[in-house]
């Protein structure tokens, strides 16, 4: 499945060049002049080489998850069920990590039509997942992907699957083997997994484009007066900066700061993302990895290269950002997890506080970029009156 996706993506990218004759002329002119201007290079690379592959990975994992959930529900022998359930749990971890890699990207079709929550309803303070999922299983409704799609977001997405796979009661193997609702629980599990993959495929298609249609990656990387979303290069770069600033803030505050609390007595393990599967630390790292890829360009021309070339930004700030990414990554290696059991134990507190401090440094360094580039991130959305 992964292979096919990659091939079709390559084909789409090539065909999209053919469908943009003006751009092709532009590219030829550039070749003649020698030096390519930095902004189009940055935007095209960011969209096509960093972001689209992240969505492709997410979709590929979601496909495996859908297939494994079907295999699990078709298994009849207890041993086989147990083994497939474990595989499915591992697959959920892989899908969720891929999602955490997409999650910080703050622009694109993900923010249309509530898709973000349809993939992950979080934080779920009232544990709506349990209430709504159990109510749906107990109802007479037909349990299909379409029914899931029309249901509350708390029964959709990866958090719902986590409940169905990891909750000590709602996700127990026994609940899939015995009792009146066993078959309905499995129907719902498959329906949610199928729905997740429908959404991930839609996101991938909308980003990469389809045969006769340019995708969001094209819209993003070709700003212009007739581009409905990005009228100029700065608007597109602003979206990238916004992702870095807000994305690092979300990791620092929501994923780490709130659960850790000001001291062990105030720790809130149930506020961790993915507390049921105890997968929180990996997810935090996955989000930071994406932020770093967006900054460094993942092997190609990234924001860091652009900033070095543009020389608008103080070299000291770029050094600081570079070092603060490294410092955060180094601190991650000092923590083993699972956070869910460690948050309430004093001996584990200090490294988490240190991680928070380092994330804070990273965030405040990234937050200096917009000003130094003369770019404003939102107007009313950053106001307070």
């Amino acid at each position, binding site marked *: 499945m992964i292979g096919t996706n990659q091939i079709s993506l390559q084909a789409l990218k090539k065909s999209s060049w053919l469908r943009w004759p003006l751009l092709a002329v532009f590219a030829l002119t550039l070749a003649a002049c020698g030096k390519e201007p930095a902004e189009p290079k940055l935007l095209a690379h960011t969209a096509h080489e960093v972001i689209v592959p992240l969505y492709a990975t997410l979709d590929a994992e979601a496909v495996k998850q859908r297939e494994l959930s079907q295999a699990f529900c078709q298994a009849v022998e207890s041993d086989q069920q147990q083994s497939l359930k474990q595989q499915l749990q591992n697959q959920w971890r892989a899908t969720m990590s891929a999602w955490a890699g997409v999650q910080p990207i703050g622009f694109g079709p993900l923010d249309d039509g509530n898709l973000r929550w349809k993939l992950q309803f979080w934080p779920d303070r*009232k544990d709506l997942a349990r209430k709504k999922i159990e109510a749906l299983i107990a109802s007479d409704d037909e349990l299909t992907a379409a029914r899931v799609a029309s249901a509350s977001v708390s029964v959709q997405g990866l958090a719902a699957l986590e409940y169905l796979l990891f909750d000590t009661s709602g996700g127990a193997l026994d609940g899939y083997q015995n009792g009146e609702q066993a078959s309905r629980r499995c129907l719902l599990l498959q329906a949610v997994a199928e729905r997740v993959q429908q959404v991930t495929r839609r996101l991938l298609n909308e980003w990469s484009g389809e045969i006769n249609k340019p995708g969001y990656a094209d819209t993003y990387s070709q700003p212009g007066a*007739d581009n409905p979303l990005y009228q100029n290069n700065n608007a597109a770069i602003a979206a990238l900066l916004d992702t870095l600033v807000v994305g690092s803030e979300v990791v620092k505050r929501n994923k780490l700061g709130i659960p850790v609390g000001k001291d062990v007595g105030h720790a809130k393990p149930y506020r961790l993302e993915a507390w049921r599967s105890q997968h929180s630390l990996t997810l935090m790292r996955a989000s930071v990895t994406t932020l770093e890829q967006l900054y460094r360009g993942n092997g190609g021309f990234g924001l860091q290269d652009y900033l070095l070339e543009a020389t608008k930004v103080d070299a000291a700030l770029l050094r600081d950002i570079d070092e603060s990414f490294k410092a955060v990554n180094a601190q991650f290696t000092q923590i083993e997890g699972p956070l869910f059991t460690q948050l309430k134990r004093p001996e584990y507190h200090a490294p988490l506080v240190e991680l928070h401090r380092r994330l804070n440094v990273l965030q405040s360094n990234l937050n200096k970029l917009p000003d130094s580039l003369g770019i404003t991130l*939102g107007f*009313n*959305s950053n106001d307070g*009156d």
Partner: protein
Amino acid sequence: MHRRKFLQLAMAGGALSVLPLAGCGTKSPQPLLLSGSDNGDQHTLCGWQLGQGERFRLPVEQRVHAPLMRPYSQQAVFVARRPGTLIYVVDVQQGVIEQQLSALPDRHFYGHAIFSTNGRWLYVPENAYAEQGRGKIGVYDAAAGFQRVQEFDLGGIGPHQLALMPDGFTLAIALGGIQTHPEHSRDKLNLDRMRSALLYLDTRSGQVTARFDAPHRHVSLRHLDVAKDGTVMVGAQFQSSANPDESYTGPLVFTQRGKHGLQALQASDESWQAQKHYIASVVMNNSGTLAITTSPRGGVVNIWQLGEDRLLKQYRVKDVAGAGYLPAEGGFVVSNGLGQLFSVSDELQLLEHAVSTRWDNHLLVNV
């Protein structure tokens, strides 16, 4: 899906052409919209005629917040937002600043004001920051060159938007509860003890006649509108910085009727969450059956059904804040920081796009 395609079409078309408003006759000119706008570092007062574009754009020293028209006149006032100290009086026909009013020493404005029904008295929320931030309403006589003639003490902190009740003498005032001081920029100084409320003040006696406290100690009531039947709708901002440990998904929009307390409007947790703790504008239609609120942080516009008091529809509009009602069309208009204007009714439609204009927090429709 259908809506999104429609929006894309509307946006694509809007960049090139101007869509006339449906149902707008040839007799009356299209309404004039007033709003503050910032182009880079320049604060301006802007008049924008739908269908015709910019009527005036006046550079000013201080960033303004909300414009309003003086009844029976061509005068508009634009009030500087906190900690601003100026009110600009503009002749909207001529497109010129006629007068500039200054706050008293040790006072600043909050960006809002309201006129009495006859257009003579201008009521302006003020921060007496040298008196522990006491909230005041300054009264200015428009018939005497906007001379300041009186003030009312509110017994609370942070009066923000206010409106005149249908009785013509009662002011409904959103008391934000948050203390700020110009020497501390826009920092919030009292989050641990803020007390926000909806106040009613009798302009004849200057007395606060009723007070309805916000339902949560970190909910700050800021913006409101009043329907003809006296229903007040108020929009809040949740102070999440005071609550790092709590992710509030509770209501941000309330109605208040008669002697009843604040009643939260009905919407799902997800819809509230999409509003990101922040309501920028509240506008009701003339009959008080529908209202909209804008949430720039969430990038959503909500349409509310009043009576049933529930959420009808939510649209995504990036950086949306300003809102107004278009009586001839029976629909609403919203503005955003990207210079766009959308009509909002059964569907969302891009009306116009003002290049390099960042529409500020509030919009006024002058018909």
